[in-house]
């Protein structure tokens, strides 16, 4: 059977999990909404955006990008759980293409993240966030977010297949926080000490967050630097580069299950 058809069947399987146990995706969603509210209203009053602009309007695109990045954790956890329980071995003994298992994960996680994006966008509209650009750039912004999620997927698949113990997924759960915060997702890099701001600006998450702000017509919090000039190109380039690295690594990790 072709990997695409088997991947579709496994996508349906992963989606059926969420129908049977809806609390997992709902909790993930509530978590993103909670973060949005905590930063938007609890901390937001103390934060000013360089270059001017409303903080909620600045924050929402950052939260969208951040929630795409947090997806790496659910991908890695799901892959590791299947490998640990012997389900992956079972699938490997079936007459299906070797990309099927990964494609099933990609299909389900992309569907989940699309729903999550739409809910967060609706939530943003409720708390006063607005798109002030044209529909074209706005759609491009959503596509860039999904592209970023796609890159995170391959990191998650690689981690889940390579380190099957619980430790690896816990490491991912912890690491997403400093990596997520060391970016322009929540605060502008220009409010950080110079060297730290430079690191944050080069975080792939910052590229996506800044590009999405620009495309939605929201305040970017950027007055100069590479993110001011070419955030959209960086938001295209970073995920493609990450995918180009982690997709082959994932394929290798899958093959190495045979070793």
């Amino acid at each position: 059977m072709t990997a695409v058809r088997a991947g579709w069947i496994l996508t349906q399987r992963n989606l059926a999990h969420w129908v049977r146990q809806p609390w997992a995706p709902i909790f993930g969603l509530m978590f993103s909404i909670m973060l949005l509210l905590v930063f938007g209203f609890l901390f937001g009053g103390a934060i000013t955006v360089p270059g001017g602009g409303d903080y909620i309007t600045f924050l929402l695109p950052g939260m969208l990008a951040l929630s795409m990045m947090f997806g790496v954790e659910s991908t890695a956890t799901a892959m590791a759980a299947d490998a640990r329980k012997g389900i992956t071995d079972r699938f490997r003994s079936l007459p299906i293409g070797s990309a099927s298992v990964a494609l099933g994960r990609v299909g389900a996680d992309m569907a989940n993240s699309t729903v999550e994006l739409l809910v967060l966008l609706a939530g943003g509209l409720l708390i006063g966030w607005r798109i002030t650009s044209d529909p074209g750039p706005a759609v491009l912004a959503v596509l860039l977010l999904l592209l970023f999620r796609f890159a995170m997927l391959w990191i998650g698949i690689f981690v889940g297949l390579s380190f099957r113990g619980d430790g690896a997924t816990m490491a991912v759960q912890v690491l997403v926080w400093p990596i997520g915060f060391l970016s322009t997702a929540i605060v502008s890099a220009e409010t950080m000490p110079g060297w730290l701001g430079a690191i944050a600006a080069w975080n792939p998450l910052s590229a996506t967050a800044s590009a999405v702000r620009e495309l939605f017509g929201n305040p970017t919090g950027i007055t100069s630097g590479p993110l001011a000039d070419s955030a959209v190109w960086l938001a295209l380039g970073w995920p493609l580069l990450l995918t180009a690295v982690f997709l082959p690594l994932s394929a290798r990790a899958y093959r190495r299950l045979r070793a």
Partner: protein
Amino acid sequence: MNLVADGLRKRYGDVQALDGFDLEVPPGVIHGLLGPNGAGKTTAVKALATLIDVDEGVAKVAGFDVRTQAAQVRKRIGLIGQNAAVDEILGGRQNLVMFGRLYGLSTVDARAAADRLLAMFGLTEAAERAVSTYSGGMRRRLDIAAGFILTPAVLFLDEPTTGLDPRGRNEVWAAVREVAAAGTTVLLTTQYLDEADQLAARISVMNHGRVVADDTPGVLKREIGGDRVTLTIAPGEPLDELAERLGTAVGIPAVIDADTRSLTFEVGSGVTGLSRLVRALDEFGVTPEDLVLRRPTLDEVFLTLTDTPREAVK
């Protein structure tokens, strides 16, 4: 032969998991692969089921080479691994429909196959419930049903009853017999000797990555020698001293089990040894609580063939 392995070798770091593993299984029989933990049973199954590449050797399943014709092999096998590898979150029916479709059935055919298999393995009533609510035996039966969707030429069962209660074990045994009755070759690994004895037409005893004996359960039992007499000694009698004295009198060393306070003698062809033993007991004025004459168990076959000390296995 439906299943052939010739000189398989596989090394994991310092461990030689397979060290010249050979196997020949004709179509339609249940073949037992018996060995202690770490003997290499699972590695052998994984190699035959195309899950791992061996370092050396050739294996064929249903006439296809597991390394060069893996896709052909996978169409003809079902693999039931050590932990019941069915989806716990989905229902039983959902699992079977999913596996049926992955084996290439249309959704309609997969549903029909699921209903047939649920009935065959006694799971119709639990069909819609999440598998996480199933008992161990039910989960295993679903696992076997999922491996049996296309009536495979070979079904691999890796320790299918480990961790099951006696009832679950009986349910799984019935399922395995059902599968074999349909003409599927079953390769069953187990640490339980009575399981191999109950189910398998032939048994390969495995230790340190290779087969150390391969025969029918009956022949393996004969190979290990004659009958056993087991005496249960009343508390208060000196067990070690009695073992020594009886051993000398009969000319056969006693195997002492302090936990059950029993002495076992391998008496050869039965009657002579038994009568000598009874005379010696009379002479010493000892009346055992119990005296049993029996054929050797597969446990003893196994222990002799693999040179594993009795204490280590208990």
